[in-house]
């Protein structure tokens, strides 16, 4: 009798249950995982390139439910290709239900660019901080390209800036229609404690989309962007590189 009421209570309070939701960022080139410093890729102009370093900030994550108020997460996350743990963002309390939209920003807002010493993702030890002109580097992509005229054929994009002359914060919006976050309840035989399995959404960050976007970046001409010159243009490119990886999200 006791057991039945417990199960009932769990079932009835579904709508009020919140569970962790993971966002998995999958850094890829043309849909395939990046092989750091190894593989040669080609942009839309036929110029080849490698990837040796990729890091970017994700912030201001918002989930829009089918009905009700938007959920906002105010933390900062640094996604680094050389650290697989960094690619999974866990949002701890997401009520189960239907969501229509995921939005996030690439970059760090003006307040956090002007707040002095900070820790965790915003710790300057992460190598994403400009000291000569205060501010966070929002997006860092480095590699080699035979098309580049820089010493060592390197190309480098260190993009940041939260105010004029280059505001490089970009917002990305991903359609989630049709995806429901349902709880996964595991009832072990010996207890009636509910256990919720983490569910996740996979987001692809595709460097080939970054390189190409509407018009490809010409690596002969724009191979080094490390201050505000051309920065906003490159920011428009990274805005284009994110998309939802379609798979069976319903449970």
């Amino acid at each position, binding site marked *: 009798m006791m057991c039945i009421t417990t199960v009932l209570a769990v079932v009835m309070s579904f709508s009020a249950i919140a569970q962790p939701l993971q966002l998995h960022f999958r850094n890829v080139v043309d849909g395939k995982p990046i092989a750091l410093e190894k593989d040669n890729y080609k942009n839309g102009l036929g110029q080849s390139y490698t990837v040796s370093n990729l890091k970017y900030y994700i912030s201001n994550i918002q989930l829009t439910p089918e009905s009700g108020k938007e959920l906002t997460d105010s933390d900062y996350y640094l996604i680094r290709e050389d650290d697989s743990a960094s690619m999974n963002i866990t949002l701890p309390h997401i009520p189960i239900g239907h969501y229509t939209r995921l939005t996030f920003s690439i970059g760090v807002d003006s307040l956090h*660019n*002007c*707040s*002095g*010493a*900070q*820790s965790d993702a915003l*710790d*300057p*030890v992460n*190598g994403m*901080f400009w*000291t*000569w*002109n*205060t*501010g966070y580097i929002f997006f860092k992509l480095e590699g080699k390209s035979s098309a580049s005229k820089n010493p060592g054929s390197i190309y480098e994009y260190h993009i940041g800036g939260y105010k*004029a*002359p*280059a505001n490089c914060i970009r917002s990305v919006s991903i359609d989630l229609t049709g995806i429901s976050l349902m709880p996964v309840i595991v009832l072990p035989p010996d207890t009636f404690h509910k256990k919720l399995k983490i569910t996740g959404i996979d987001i692809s960050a595709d460097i080939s989309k970054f390189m190409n976007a509407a018009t490809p970046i010409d690596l002969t001409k724009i191979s080094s962007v490390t201050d*505000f*010159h051309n920065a906003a243009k490159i920011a428009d490119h990274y805005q284009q590189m994110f998309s939802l990886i379609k798979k069976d999200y319903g449970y």
Partner: protein
Amino acid sequence: MAIKKPIVISVLVFAIILLSNFTETNPYFTITEKDVAFEVPKGFPAPTYTFANNKPTPAGFTLGRRLFYDPILSKDSSTSCASCHQRIAAFAHIDHTLSHGISGLIGKRNVPPLQNLAWGQSFMWDGGVNHLEIQPLTPMANPIEMASDIGDVIRKLKRNPYYREAFKEAFGDTLISSERMLKAMAQFTGLMVSANSRYDKFMRHEDTLTQFELNGLVIFREKCAKCHREPLFTDESYKSSGLYPDSTLNDPGRELITGRIKDENTFKVPSLRNVAMTYPYMHDGRFRTLEQVLDHYSKGDYYMLNVTPELLATRDMNDLEKKEVIAFLKTLTDKTFLYDRRFADPTYH
């Protein structure tokens, strides 16, 4: 033998710890609660840096002071903040036109004094740094200043027994992080307040100025104070002082940060407090004496790009007027600040 070795080592370690703590136990260097009280001097505006999330404590300040004087912050442990910022010069660098960094490399700009930093809205000659706490990262990262990586510095601090103790004392546990390091340094630099010169005492009716100095003050208020605004002697704006650009340095000034043509050849209006102590002058240290600075303003042979009307008013001072202005500028020397034992080198024996 096998037993003796550890004893010898521990005696050695003990001696080293004793030595490294020696100075902090010397009463001259001891910092008390009273020493770290931040007060806004009478007549000063509200500070920009309020210590709201970084209340100074004796242990925090002591740690910040130690870091300021420790070459551990540079790549080859050769250069400390104090190598360039000397206390006797209000933390400017006497007699160096351009800064000298590691391996004798020469920097691009003259070392400014460090004073009243809590009122600074931005730092550096071009205002490229927006917050007092993160300012130390700039010289540390600069390849011709300290050339180090903040990650490496934190690793070095973590290995150092003195700092493990000092961070614990300042922050309650042994975590050594860049955030804590920078906050401790901001406690030290933020408390560098100069507000007790003869000029300040005159303003508070505690002292008098000579007629000669007073004449200088009148001229100063008429010709200079629009940019060098009292009581901080800067309005925190970026202006051209009409200097011809140096063709070897090609320093665009504020334009480097904003990219705006109207900011080319403009620099942060420097405070003139303790100015008699901070020679040479200007962002590139081109003038060795205040007489040369006054001659420049008076002669009015300006590089006109982005010059504003306030500057034109400085033209045509006669020799007497120039001398009077200089006499007034010398009343801005603040011996209380220059000889403040709180800011003295604690590692000096």
